């Protein structure tokens, strides 16, 4: 059963999403409404679902959304797919950070939640301040992650614009070899090495060797 509340007109929606989009999943309709009201008041975009499966269905249909950081606020104890299961399923998609909530203070639940990578675990009834703090933390994480992804994409694009020769030279520079060694190793003139190195660094937007090493490291991560 899915019930998605669009709490403001689409004109303001973009602005809200830019501040932060929060997906709220709880089988108690009243509480869902209360949270949505609060978050809307704080300027976020709140999306509400009465069950994890409702949310998963929406995911698969790939709803278009506005850009911005986002996170999931989910109750642990729900029929069918409960919060921890949802956490596992979403982990495979490595999506947004999750904040889990529970009406019962089960220690095992909390441990599993954190081991599953939750950003936070709130026990109902919780203070609104605590909730907003947890959301801020999660959104910051989300921004960070998004920024990293964007950066990686950017760097990746720049890297693909390198010629193979430039790539070879830069790899060797990154490994700490001198221009002369590179010239010898690759069997090209020293001037060519210097030329490739220069253009390569320019394309990558690296200021110097240190920058280059960082960029190469970043590319290796993924």
């Amino acid at each position, binding site marked *: 059963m899915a019930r998605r509340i669009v709490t403001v007109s689409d004109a303001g929606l973009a602005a809200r999403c830019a501040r932060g989009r929060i997906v709220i999943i709880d089988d108690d309709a*009243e509480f869902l409404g*209360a*949270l949505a009201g*609060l978050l809307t008041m704080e300027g976020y975009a709140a999306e509400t679902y009465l069950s994890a499966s409702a949310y998963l269905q929406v995911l698969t249909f790939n709803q278009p959304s506005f850009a911005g950081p986002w996170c999931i606020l989910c109750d642990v104890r*729900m029929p069918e797919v409960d919060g921890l299961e949802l956490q596992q399923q979403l982990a495979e998609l490595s999506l947004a950070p999750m904040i889990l909530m529970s009406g019962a203070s089960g220690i095992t639940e909390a441990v599993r939640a954190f081991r599953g990578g939750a950003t936070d675990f709130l026990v109902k*009834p919780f203070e*609104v301040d605590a909730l907003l703090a947890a959301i801020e933390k999660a959104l910051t994480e989300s921004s960070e992650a998004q920024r990293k992804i964007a950066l990686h994409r950017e760097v990746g694009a720049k890297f693909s614009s390198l010629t193979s020769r430039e790539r070879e030279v830069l790899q060797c520079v990154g490994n700490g070899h001198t221009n002369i060694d590179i010239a010898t190793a690759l069997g090209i003139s020293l001037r060519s090495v210097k030329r490739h190195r220069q253009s390569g660094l320019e394309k990558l937007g690296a200021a110097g060797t240190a920058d280059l090493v960082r960029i190469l490291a970043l590319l290796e991560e993924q």
Partner: protein
Amino acid sequence: MAGFMPAIDVPTAVLHSALLYFIMPAVTWLVLVEQRTSQVRLWCLGGILIGLGVLLYGLHGKVPDWLAPSAAFAITIVGTLLRIQSLRMDLGIQWQRRTPLLIMLSVMIVFELLNRYFEAYVLRAQFGALAHAVLIFHLADLARRIGHNELSSSARWIAWTYALVGIAQIGRLVAIPFVSPNNPIPIQGGISTLVLTSTLILSAVVSHLAFIGLQLDRSRQRELKMVEQRGREEEKRKLADQIAHLDRQRGLGELSASLGHELNQPLATILTSVQTAKRGVETGYFQAPQLIELLEKVAQNTRRASQIIDRIRGYIRPSVAKAEVVDLNAVVSEALDLIADESRRHNVRIVREMLDSQILVRGDPVQFTQILLNMLRNAVEALSMSPLRELHIEFEQDGDWATARLRDTGPGLSPDAIEKIGSPFFSTKSGGLGMGIVISRSIAEHHGGSLTILNNLSNGGVGVVAELKLPTARVHLP
């Protein structure tokens, strides 16, 4: 010897003893008006017959021969046999119809043979005395046994007095040939007859008084036992109520996690709404209408929370059982409320028959809720692994009986479980005490009903059918 006691007229003494054997049985019969069992009847009738026989003996010589000694002998024998049968009934070893008849017959035949055929009067008299003695000793022995079994001194008095009579008869048996060897009316004989008469008079008084004493003793004991029994049952009922109460406590402990979760929901909504309202007012974001909406939400959820608490309080009420007229439908609703969270969590769908009238039963509503909660929880547990999770609740009412039936779509009971279900300490749950069904069943039976749990065999059905049957109350609720 005969001239030794001219002042005492033996026949008169005999007649007096006969008189007593008329009066005393009659008095006994009147006094024991509330205990007129067949034993008492036999005893009194026997006594009167003995009196009649002794009377005829006393008239020996003045009445035709067939009356005395023949009829006299026969009647006294019958009277004694009746008394013997009375005591035998008390001991539980009563004669079949034919035994006394046989005895009668054989004794009479011998007597008449001796009397008319052989005309051996002395022998006849001796045989008569012997026959009497044997039977009277037997009577005394029976009384002695009763006295021993029931620790009754009254019965022992009966034994003693008849033993004396028996001894007197033996004495007479011995004396007859010496006293009146040729006298066809040996009753005229002296001391031995006198002794016999005295013991008869003694026995008339003692045996009847002791008999009355014996019956009254027994009736007193019976009353004592009834009072004891009633006291014990009262205690048993109190204990059962206590056990039911403790079981409710424990059940509530187990439910408390679910109930706590349920309670936290409205509380969380209240807290969030209140703090949202505060922020909204501080920032000027909210105007009066939105504020009112939030406040209304707070009020509603407060009511929701207090309803949950009411449910708990209602359920855990102390152990004194009430007897009221209860609507079974309402009881089912309460139990469903208590289990709402758990069933939602296990994703069990509950299909409940809608009723247009009440189903009234008599008893303690909280204990009924307890049974239904137990049934529902068992069903929800049984469904925890099933692909199809449904619980069907149906009602039935036919005049005398009201039935609430629970059908689940679970795996059903294993043959082992069918056998052992309802035995104490048998549980299919890990960590289960195994007393839930035992207690529920005993509550149902306490109220005159029953709780049955069987596999569903109708329509190729799956799962378990649990039925609670209770006697209907015949009153209409306002």
